[in-house]
């Protein structure tokens, strides 16, 4: 269903405010200035055991001016939608640039900010792919659907509690800069989630199982049958949870793993997505989220993984959470290679980093999560390509003598250079002689990034491909969150280290 940009947003004085801010920045001598006005509506609905237990509906509206002045960045934001306020915020941004220049001079540095060229995109509009705006659906309908799903799970034997939640976001952005680019965009995304909890009152043991449906750049239709079969998933969960409660604890050691897309997306996010952000690799995130082992000097040479590993950065994938028309620096969305045949061949860039490193044009990875934040280099949809003639998940499992099939994400952690990671999941199935042989408990896999991707022996076919993702990827200071998708097929990894988490806890 085609949509247009929300009329209430376009009715705001977008162009007039931008003109006032950019004119003031120019008059004060800025080499570059950009203006961004955003309205982001985020809402959550939560149910606990099928009863409402909290919800919120927040709208963030404001604008930001960013300048390059005297070779330094300056940034300021405001909320009063008047010409005077826009001009004043531009002045504040210039003042902040002057303060920066002062500190840089005091440090004896001659570093200057310059931006990579980008074609002018004048008066462009872009809207993400969705059918039904979730904010157009009555709250009572949302609550009723979540309550119905919760009740289905609660009615099953062995399910003691059910937590249900739905997050929805409707994001509008207007961008204009002193080069003449101006864009108006609209994005919608949703994240429904249900968790069933089992408790053995006698022993005190408990466990949970969460839906593996990923968040999606879709509308309300995602909850009513488009893009995910909720009925089938809800039906399976109680039985799987009951089996998990009875499952034996894993024997720590080395196993072959078949990793389902519902788990592998997060491993890709942490060990490839963040590692190929060039601002991190260069040190601009060093004090906070860290740097990257994939340093710039290794571009074109670093053996990232096995030769069947092909990873793309993509801001154009339909329903992707990081999919846009133009980024927050006015750069058009693109798709490019990050890892080709197992070798590092690309990075994620913004305009400043692209210019600094001589890589030419930015690939459009600047994003700010609110009008109060400066755009930083954020993740594209980073996805592992399937093998066009690849196997099904069942056939991948069929090639394993002794291993584990990993489904769904749970716990994740990786070091500050993206070497050492540890992940758990929702469901772990023992594989014996090519067949699933019941679930295991207390499983975590731990590896080093290049060892893990180097151990990837088979990539599943397009029939196994799923676009997973997250709503809440954190980066930068002040902290920002971004949503991002990662597509991947099932894949087979040989000889991976498996921990028993109960033993790790010293029990």
């Amino acid at each position: 269903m085609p949509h247009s940009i929300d009329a209430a947003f376009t009715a705001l004085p977008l162009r007039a405010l931008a003109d006032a801010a950019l004119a003031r920045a120019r008059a004060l001598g800025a080499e570059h200035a950009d203006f961004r006005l955003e309205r982001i509506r985020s809402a959550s609905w939560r149910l606990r055991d099928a009863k409402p237990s909290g919800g919120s509906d927040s709208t963030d509206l404001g604008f930001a001016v960013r300048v390059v002045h005297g070779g330094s960045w300056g940034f300021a934001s405001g909320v009063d939608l008047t010409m005077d306020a826009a001009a004043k915020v531009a002045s504040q941004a210039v003042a902040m640039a002057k303060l920066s220049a002062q500190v840089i001079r005091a440090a004896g540095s001659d570093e200057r900010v310059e931006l990579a060229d980008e074609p002018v995109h004048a008066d462009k509009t872009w809207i993400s792919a969705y059918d039904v705006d979730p904010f157009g659906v009555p709250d009572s309908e949302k609550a009723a659907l979540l309550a119905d799903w919760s009740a289905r799970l609660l009615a099953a034997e062995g399910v003691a509690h059910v937590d249900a939640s739905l997050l929805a976001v409707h994001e509008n952005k207007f961008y204009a800069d002193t080069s003449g680019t101006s864009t108006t965009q609209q994005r919608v995304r949703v994240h429904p989630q249900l968790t069933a909890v089992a408790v053995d009152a006698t022993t005190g043991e408990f466990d949970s199982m969460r839906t593996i449906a990923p968040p999606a750049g879709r509308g309300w239709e995602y909850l009513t049958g488009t893009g995910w079969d909720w009925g089938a998933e809800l039906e399976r969960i109680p039985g799987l949870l009951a089996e998990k409660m009875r499952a034996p604890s894993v024997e720590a050691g080395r196993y072959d793993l078949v990793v389902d897309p519902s788990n592998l997306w997060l491993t890709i996010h942490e060990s490839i997505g963040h590692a190929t952000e060039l601002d991190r690799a260069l040190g601009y995130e060093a004090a906070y989220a860290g740097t990257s082992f994939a340093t710039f000097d290794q571009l074109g040479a670093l053996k990232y993984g096995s030769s069947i590993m092909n990873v793309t950065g993509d801001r154009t994938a339909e329903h992707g959470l990081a999919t846009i028309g133009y980024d927050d620096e006015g750069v058009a969305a693109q798709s490019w290679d990050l890892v080709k045949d197992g070798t590092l061949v690309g990075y994620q860039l913004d305009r400043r980093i692209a210019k600094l490193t001589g890589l030419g044009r930015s690939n459009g990875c600047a994003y700010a999560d609110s009008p109060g934040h400066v755009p930083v280099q954020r993740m594209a949809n980073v996805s592992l390509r399937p093998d066009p003639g690849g196997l099904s998940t069942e056939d991948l499992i069929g090639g394993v003598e002794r291993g584990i099939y990993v489904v769904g994400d749970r716990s994740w952690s990786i070091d500050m250079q993206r070497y050492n990671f540890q992940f758990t999941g929702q469901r772990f199935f023992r594989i014996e002689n090519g067949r699933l042989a019941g679930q295991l408990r207390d499983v975590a896999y731990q590896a080093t990034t290049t060892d893990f991707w180097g151990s990837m022996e088979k990539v599943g076919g397009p029939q196994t491909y799923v676009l997973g993702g997250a709503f809440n990827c954190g980066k930068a200071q002040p902290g920002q969150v971004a949503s991002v998708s990662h597509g991947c097929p099932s894949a087979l990894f040989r000889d991976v280290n498996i921990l028993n988490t109960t033993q790790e806890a010293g029990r």
Partner: protein
Amino acid sequence: MSRTKPHEIVERALELSTADGCVVIADEESSANLRWAGNALTTNGVTRGRTLTVIATVDGGEGTASGVVTRSAVTAADLEPLVRAAEAAARGAGPAEDAQPLVTGTPASPDFADGPAETSSAVFADFAPALGEAFARARAGGRELYGFAHHQLVSTYVGTSTGLRLRHDQPNGTLELNAKSPDRQRSAWAGRATRDFKDVDPTVLDAELAVRLGWAERRIELPAGRYETLLPPTAVADLLIYQMWSAAARDAAEGRTVFSRPGGGTRVGDRLSPLPLTLRSDPDAPGLESAPFVIAHSSGDDASVFDNGLPVPATEWIANGELARLTTTRHSAALTGLPLSPAFGNLILDGGGDRSLEEMVAGTERGLLLTCLWYIREVDPATLLLTGLTRDGVYLVEDGQVVGEVNNFRFNESPVDLLSRATEAGRTERTLPREWGDWFTRAAMPALRVPDFNMSSVSKGV
């Protein structure tokens, strides 16, 4: 409307309300920040914002429902639609499980009608030149400085249809300084929490980090294993903040947390540590002052919008080594039979020790001295097993001296279990939690000595 005082907006929104009950929260926020990398500023900014949250409550035959709507940059034209949206949300939500009568009886704040407190780039008037000096010193000394300075002031106004008129001003400042050798093979970190940037000097921190980078000139490779470990206050804070996030009484009573008692009930009253540890929060703690009343923008496991304005008393969560309280709302307190203990704005651990971290190092025969922990995530809620990494300097201590830097490790540990195994708590001091410092900054902790910290694997990351 943008120049209207926040208390007037609160009053007007309450006047517009046609619901059975109404809570209005106005947050006036201002901030200034500087960020730097490789001895040069990278980004900076100042922000100013206002958000208004309207919580409408609607009584019905099956109970009371609540609707919560928040808007930033509220104008006069937005106010009535915002109130109506909250009322519509309440009608569409169905009865709220945590419904309680709105709070009454909390005395009004004397400054409720005053304008908001505000920060600006002026907060860095002395700090910014000192930072430039620190960059120059670092450059001359062969060090690269990375880091972030952030100052924020939030003035919160809470008004209710039951007559509460409350206000709280929360300053919040953090400074994080990270020094690296030019080849980035050595790294050291220091952080401070501050209310006004008058008590932090980046040149002093740079000098402290220069000493640590010096320790790292001798590199020692150690395998994974269990080591006697000195956890500095920042690491203890990160672990105990996570523990408190997992301390909701209702979840424990339902049998789904580390604080659940097998067979039913909670572990309140259980001894968690042989040390005389007291873990407490206190809105009036000097230097760590936090809101003395509940400010809840939405309901959740340990908060209820119906509790807005409820006094937050000083609370001992662990007393003399025993679990004393779990977090409750009025609703979950009634469900569990536990005392009302609202969520907290600061966290203080006291173990009765008076030795500084340096004195604890001097008293160590052989052990590891950590700088901080990173990427802490929950592996198993039943044991509260957490995983994460050491970061920015693990040092080997032998015969009371730091003898070199050790590789980083991934750990797998439960804070609850650590408290039971800790053999010494040092002197409590104010600290900035490294990992949660962008969410939770008001903490005072001692260093802890753990005889057998589980370093699960080696991390090559620096």
